């Protein structure tokens, strides 16, 4: 069981060694990463059968004194997604050793975030995830990438300061950092305005990566300047891990009506602004970036519902987006550019156009695709919550979904319309299309097996929302309230 630490240690070890290996053989440096990722996938598969949830103490120091890893189905699912998506995005042909090392650092840090059970440990690996993504954006970038990254870095630095202030407030009141112990103390020590303030500070800090409403100005700039596969990774993976740690912190430590209201408001604001901006976008990549902001707003609305239903709704939207957005960014490898170039694209690339239609239908939420079920969970959760704010949010979401449908179907219409653009988009690279197809295939498979998947997700969400279980798992029976 202690072997779960390998999920973080091995990618980091590989990253440390890659630059030196790259000096000897660039090919070896490029191939080492995928091998380690595959081994990690195998490790996750092995852990899947174990009795979950389980807590693993790093360094043999029992929590709360030492740092612990917390393994539940949700954590393992996200760890698996980390390795699979990075393996899929691996730059086989053009990658440099430096790029390989940075990708392994990204894998290690995101896996660590999925498993972490300690507030400050989350902070450290969140920063590592930031640093690795900065490095990946700029590694081969032009000057625009450098500038966009600097602006991102400064905003993210501001987020770091807020995160630190939030951690300091929490530590002042509780004197501990372990999430389970914090969960134990929170109703007593962090219930009032102080707790809410700490939550908002941490929310804004983590929200930078999660594309939360007021701190997402970097998204369109960075996604436009970065390579497309990397934008897909940032939108599909990095934001989701930020979402997962936010979920843990919310459910365990700051589970209050006010915190949920904050999430509902900010999430709705993100959904509205993101989808409206996407409607105005004149090019494919910006459209995808803004739609990503909108989808993540929907995730936060889901978390704002509260309880196991809220966890399930938010995670369902996040998982759906995790498949759909990277696929769209792989298509953008050749379609990136003005939307006018895509006039009549369905004749030139019928398969890719059909795949886009599938993804667009799922994003809008047309049954029976997974996107529909995810959105339905959010809508039903809001309806069941029943407060005035929840109804207002529900109305906003339904209204803006029309906008989302409008811009996506406008583009679909353009695909199947007559007429040739002055400059057609280039042919899609075979490997890019294959990767998009794999993700799209996963989406279709999810639509077929939606019932067992729904049951599984319901169980996982109930486990994640079960705070007493979390506390006893980490602190033992003595920790029971």
């Amino acid at each position, binding site marked *: 069981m202690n072997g779960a630490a390998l999920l973080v240690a091995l990618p980091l070890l590989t990253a440390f060694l890659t630059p030196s290996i790259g000096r000897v053989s660039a090919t070896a440096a490029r191939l080492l990463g995928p091998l380690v990722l595959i081994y990690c996938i195998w490790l996750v598969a092995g852990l899947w059968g174990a009795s979950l949830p389980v807590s693993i103490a790093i360094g043999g120091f029992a929590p709360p004194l030492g740092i612990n890893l917390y393994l539940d189905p949700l954590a393992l699912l996200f760890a698996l997604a980390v390795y699979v998506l990075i393996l899929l995005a691996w730059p086989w042909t053009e990658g440099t050793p430096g790029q390989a090392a940075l990708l392994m650092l990204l894998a290690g840090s995101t896996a660590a975030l999925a498993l972490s059970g300690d507030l400050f440990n989350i902070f450290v690996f969140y920063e590592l995830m930031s640093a690795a993504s900065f490095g990946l954006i700029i590694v081969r970038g032009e000057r625009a990438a450098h500038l966009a990254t600097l602006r991102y870095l400064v905003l993210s630095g*501001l987020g770091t300061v807020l995160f630190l202030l939030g951690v300091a407030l929490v530590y002042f009141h509780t004197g501990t950092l372990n999430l389970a112990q914090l969960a134990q103390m929170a109703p007593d020590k962090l219930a009032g305005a102080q707790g809410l303030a700490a939550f908002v500070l941490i929310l804004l800090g983590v929200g930078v990566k999660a594309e939360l409403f007021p701190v997402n100005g970097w998204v369109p700039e960075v996604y436009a300047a970065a390579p497309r596969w990397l934008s897909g990774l940032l939108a599909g993976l990095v934001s989701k891990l930020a979402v997962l740690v936010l979920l843990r912190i919310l459910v365990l430590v700051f589970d209050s009506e006010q915190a949920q209201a904050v999430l509902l408001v900010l999430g709705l604001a993100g959904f509205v602004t993101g989808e409206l901006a996407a409607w105005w976008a004149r090019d494919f990549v910006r459209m995808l970036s803004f739609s990503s902001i909108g989808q993540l707003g929907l995730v936060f609305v889901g978390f704002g519902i509260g309880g196991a239903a809220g966890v399930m709704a938010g995670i369902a939207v996040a998982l759906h987006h995790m498949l759909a957005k990277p696929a769209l960014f792989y298509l953008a490898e050749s379609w990136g550019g003005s939307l006018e170039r895509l006039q009549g694209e369905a004749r030139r690339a019928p398969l890719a156009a059909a795949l886009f239609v599938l993804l667009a239908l799922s994003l809008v939420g047309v049954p029976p695709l997974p996107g529909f079920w995810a959105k339905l969970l959010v809508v039903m959760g809001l309806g069941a919550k029943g407060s005035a704010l929840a109804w207002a949010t529900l109305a906003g979401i339904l209204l803006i979904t029309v906008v989302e449908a409008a811009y996506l179907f406008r583009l679909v219409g353009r695909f199947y319309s007559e007429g040739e653009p002055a400059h057609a988009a280039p042919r899609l690279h075979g490997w890019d299309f294959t990767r998009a197809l794999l993700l799209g295939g996963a989406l279709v498979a999810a639509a077929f097996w939606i019932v067992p998947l729904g049951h599984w997700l319901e169980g996982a969400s109930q486990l994640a929302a079960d705070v007493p279980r979390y506390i006893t798992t980490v602190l033992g029976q003595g920790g029971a309230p």
Partner: protein
Amino acid sequence: MPIPLDTLFFAGALGLVAIGVVGMLASRHLFRVLLCLGLAEAGGNLLLVLSGYRWDSVAPILTGDLPVGVSMVDPVPQALVLTSIVIGVGMEALAVALLIRIRRAYGTLDGHALLARLREDLDERLGVAPDRSEDLPKGHAPFPAPAAKEQEVNP
């Protein structure tokens, strides 16, 4: 009227954060923005290390001659601050390297001017600039930057 010590410490931490944030928002020059970010981080670190302070306590190092009844301060925040300082150093170094490259590519570090140039560059890269050239975009780098723009950069 004597000012309580804790007020002074808190004022220092919060003052640094406030000065830093105001400076980041108000400065146009990117290097100043970066310096202000460093200040704000220092404020955050100070608040974090204050969270471990105890009155009448000594440094958490066992020397064997600790007087009876004297306690030690909390060692955990000290370790945390060490970590967060190192993280700050790494990020600042990366930011400075980016500044050097940006200064060389754009010839300026003025935030407003750079933002306008960034929008132009991105529009160009995404193929929606008003004066899009008629070159056919191709393959993985669909829109090569026109050569003319690179030359106007100051050395």
